[in-house]
């Protein structure tokens, strides 16, 4: 009887874990509402990230339209768990976080809004440690209001 109970609770736990993978991570409200890069990084649990050449940020040097800035980030750091992108001079710098699992390559491509010329910072979490790289993108026409 005890064995049966243990087995069924183990199954229930496995079921719950299985379900959990289908539910999105809790949206990082505090991080996305932070008004400075430093505050936003704190909410991601970052205390000092190592600058890495294993991170590649592909984006135009000059973006004519700040409303549509194509940005691609590739991490060659082993065991990359997530990529976050921060646009330092945006009103809310933290832009997005991508968490990888089950064979997803540590590569993402998206388009950002940029209010003005700014450093775009990629933040990689790998084996629980943080790595970073930055690239300045010059913006001719801002894309936040208008």
């Amino acid at each position, binding site marked *: 009887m005890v064995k049966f109970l243990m087995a069924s609770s183990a199954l229930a736990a496995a079921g719950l874990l299985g379900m959990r993978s289908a539910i999105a991570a809790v949206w990082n409200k505090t991080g996305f509402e932070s008004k400075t890069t430093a505050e936003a990084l704190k909410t991601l649990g970052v205390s000092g990230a190592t600058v890495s050449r294993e991170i590649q940020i592909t984006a135009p040097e000059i973006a004519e339209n700040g409303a549509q800035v194509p940005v691609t980030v590739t991490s060659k750091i082993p065991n990359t768990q997530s990529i976050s992108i921060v646009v330092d001079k945006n009103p809310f710098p933290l832009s997005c976080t991508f968490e990888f699992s089950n064979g*997803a390559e540590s590569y993402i491509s998206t388009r950002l809004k940029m209010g003005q010329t700014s450093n775009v910072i990629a933040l990689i979490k790998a084996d629980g440690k943080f790595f970073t790289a930055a690239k300045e993108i010059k913006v001719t026409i801002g*894309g936040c209001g208008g």
Partner: protein
Amino acid sequence: MAEPMKIRAKMEGDAADVKVLMSHPMETGQRKNEKGELVPVHFIQSVIATHNGKTVLDIQWSQSIARNPFLGFRVKGAKAGDKVTISWTDTTGDKSSIDTTVAA
């Protein structure tokens, strides 16, 4: 109701290259309409990508993702015929999803 998404998944080497175009205004809450009134904030917050039912990408976005968001990613070990699904949820609780099979 959300407009449909566009999705394409194609094998490139040993990985499936997936490209998605979503249809969404991604309002920042800072833009004014013709009457000079602020348009309320309204954007996609969460996107989940799955490969044959398993989550491969768990994404959180802010309003700084461009209007009609583009997403590109790659799934290693995928094969032609595999199923890729994208689902998003926005700040009003609206949802949309689409799936496709990986082309050779």
